[in-house]
């Protein structure tokens, strides 16, 4: 395990170094624009998977957390001129609080009812933003960020590097959770909550932790977004497509491991980015649906599950 940790840490450092030096090698800004979306989805998929994949609680409300992160960071900058890193920490804290509140729902409801309740959270938050003139209401809010640091190579290169740091931090946290007592407890919750409770697993505590961590990651994913688009509006920030993608990506990659959401996000988000500028985007959305149905039907454990099954078959 220690060797794996070392390899993971080295990989993370290499990825961050690559992100840092990328602007001096890749001169075309388009790749940073497209790359930002892909890395953003890695964070979203990883955040969703902590609750959905590890604990088995399906959250349709990823957009609620993402949107709250978007709006908090935009508001902190526009109203007080606070820098992006404050926005990220603030968004993560807000996401954790919202997650904790959502976690209490799990005391009352489970399964499909929990999923529907999370969907309601998106509508509630979107409606609140629609009716708050201080957040721009329905007409949205322009966010003209400060000049990026000189070393970053430009505004988009800077937000790309920021989201990359968030992604590496979130993936490291998700990996730690998976291998720690929390992950073992969450697996027990997913297998059978009653059995876990009878075996002395603190299910309530674990569920609340998973909800908070998941919420914090999803909200942190939204924090740099206003500096990417320079404009936020409720329909995009709370888009149900974010919720759909948040579920689809871990399902494609595999929900039982930290690596699954990354694989799913890279495949699906890249395909969507390519499809947006090559084929009809109606087909793009259809593509997500078809891939999702195909994986649920044929490979419910995602690509990692398929690979594991294949290697187990070969070993036999």
């Amino acid at each position, binding site marked *: 395990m220690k060797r794996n940790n070392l390899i993971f840490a080295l990989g993370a450092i290499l990825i961050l170094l690559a992100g840092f030096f990328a602007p001096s090698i890749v001169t075309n800004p388009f790749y940073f624009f497209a790359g930002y979306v892909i890395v953003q989805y890695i964070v979203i998929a990883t955040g969703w998977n902590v609750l959905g994949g590890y604990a088995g609680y399906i959250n349709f409300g990823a957009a609620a957390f993402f949107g709250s992160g978007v709006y908090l960071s935009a508001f902190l900058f526009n109203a007080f001129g606070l820098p992006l890193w404050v926005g990220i920490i603030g968004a993560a804290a807000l996401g954790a609080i919202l997650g904790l509140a959502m976690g209490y729902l799990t005391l009352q409801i489970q399964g499909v009812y929990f999923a529907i309740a999370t969907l309601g959270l998106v509508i509630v938050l979107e409606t609140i933003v629609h009716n708050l003139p201080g957040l721009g209401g329905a007409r949205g809010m322009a966010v*003209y960020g400060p000049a990026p640091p000189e070393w970053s190579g430009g505004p988009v290169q800077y937000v790309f590097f920021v989201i990359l740091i968030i992604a590496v931090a979130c993936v490291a946290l998700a990996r730690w959770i998976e291998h720690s007592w929390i992950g073992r407890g969450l697996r027990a919750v997913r297998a059978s909550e009653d059995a876990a409770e009878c075996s002395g697993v603190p299910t309530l505590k674990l569920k609340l932790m998973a909800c908070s961590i998941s919420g914090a990651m999803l909200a942190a994913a939204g924090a740099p977004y206003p500096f990417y*688009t320079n404009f936020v*509006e409720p329909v995009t920030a709370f*888009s149900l497509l974010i919720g759909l993608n948040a579920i689809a990506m871990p399902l494609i990659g595999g929900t039982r491991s930290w690596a699954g959401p990354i694989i799913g996000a890279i495949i699906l988000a890249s395909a969507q980015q390519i499809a947006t500028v090559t084929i009809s*985007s109606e087909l793009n959305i259809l593509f997500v649906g078809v891939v999702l149905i195909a994986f649920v039907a044929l490979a419910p454990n995602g690509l990692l599950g398929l690979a594991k099954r294949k290697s187990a078959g070969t070993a036999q």
Partner: protein
Amino acid sequence: MTTRRQFNKLAAMGTLGLAAPTILSSKAFAADKPIKIGASVSLTGPLASTRAGEIGYQLWRDDVNAAGGLLGRKVEFVIYDDQSSASNVPAIYSKLVDVDKVDVLISPYGANLSAPLMPFIKQRNLFMVGMFALAGNDRARSNKYFHACPWGPDSMLGWARGFFDIAKSINAKRIAIINSDLEFSSSAAQGGAQVAKEYGMEVVMNQSYPPNTSDFSAILRNINNVAPDAVFVCSYPADSAAIIRGVKEIGINDSVQIFGGSMIGPQYGSLLGSLGEDLNGLVNITTFVPEPTLQSPGIESFFKRYTPIAIEQKLDPLGFYIPPFYYVAGQIIEAGVKGSESVDIEKMAQYLHANPIDTIVGKVAFNDIGDWTKRRTLMIQIQNVKGNDINQFREPGKQVILDPAELKSGNLITPYNAARKAS
């Protein structure tokens, strides 16, 4: 064995081969390349009805290419679908600029999709034609942005001013304002309240309603209770239709002289057809109507070609509100290129700032942030509509222009109840 002559021949051919891409892409050959115009259009998503505008691009491109192109170069559009989502816009426009290497840009539709682009075009010093964004360049203040739509300077107030000018002309004093709780309905209502104050009118009711409201009976009864002289309505298509139907069911106080102002929906063929004669008497904002004061050979030719394409593609069969201005966007680029005799964006921008240009919707001059120097949004009254035949709206006299004065094509029928019955 290779002789010296063979070696030299080989070296020369090799050098030529290596140099060929550089030579072919040099300026000497650039004249053969098409001029590329990049844009995103909402082909899908909630703004997909605006895709009718793309026909405007296509017709302009075909006209220009048939006339030999611009500076002898063909014109080509590179268009992507933004899915009506602001989050897709930055990557799409970066691809247009950095990968497709377009020469000029046209913005997506409206303020919400254009806003993500404004810092980008300012930072990168790019030329862009704006489409239907209210106050699109007010903050970025790019000097290479030129608006294709007629909002004029100070568009937030200008949007409402025509209605209040008419209200003032008939001595209306008491104003009721209702608006949907959405983006530009709220802005239009705010603008209306400011203009009313400026004109010394009393706002006796100022009420917003949730965007999904379908029953307006309570709001209309409140309006009747306060008995205003004018009702300024800022609504979107679904609520516009519900309000018109509500007025038909509940009736409106006889004190109301004019009703409407900022209702989105009755500009589109679908709503004009479905509401038909229930629209009689409505005083409302629009951008183009087939009145004699706006006719020109250019616009007639445009609609002659637009209509069959729109009908075939099941898009807005009338196309008055948006499509002509997509054609105008092309004409702005055309004027910039021809006037400056180059595709150098600095020279194009300089030319457009200094010279008024002719378009199918009239002469246009730009101020320092690319807005039209003169407001040309139309305030029309719907009159003499019978039944629901959509083709009657192609005739003059159904949407008469009341404001601006120089384009006036008919007279206001007032009060509103009389105008609703008149036919």
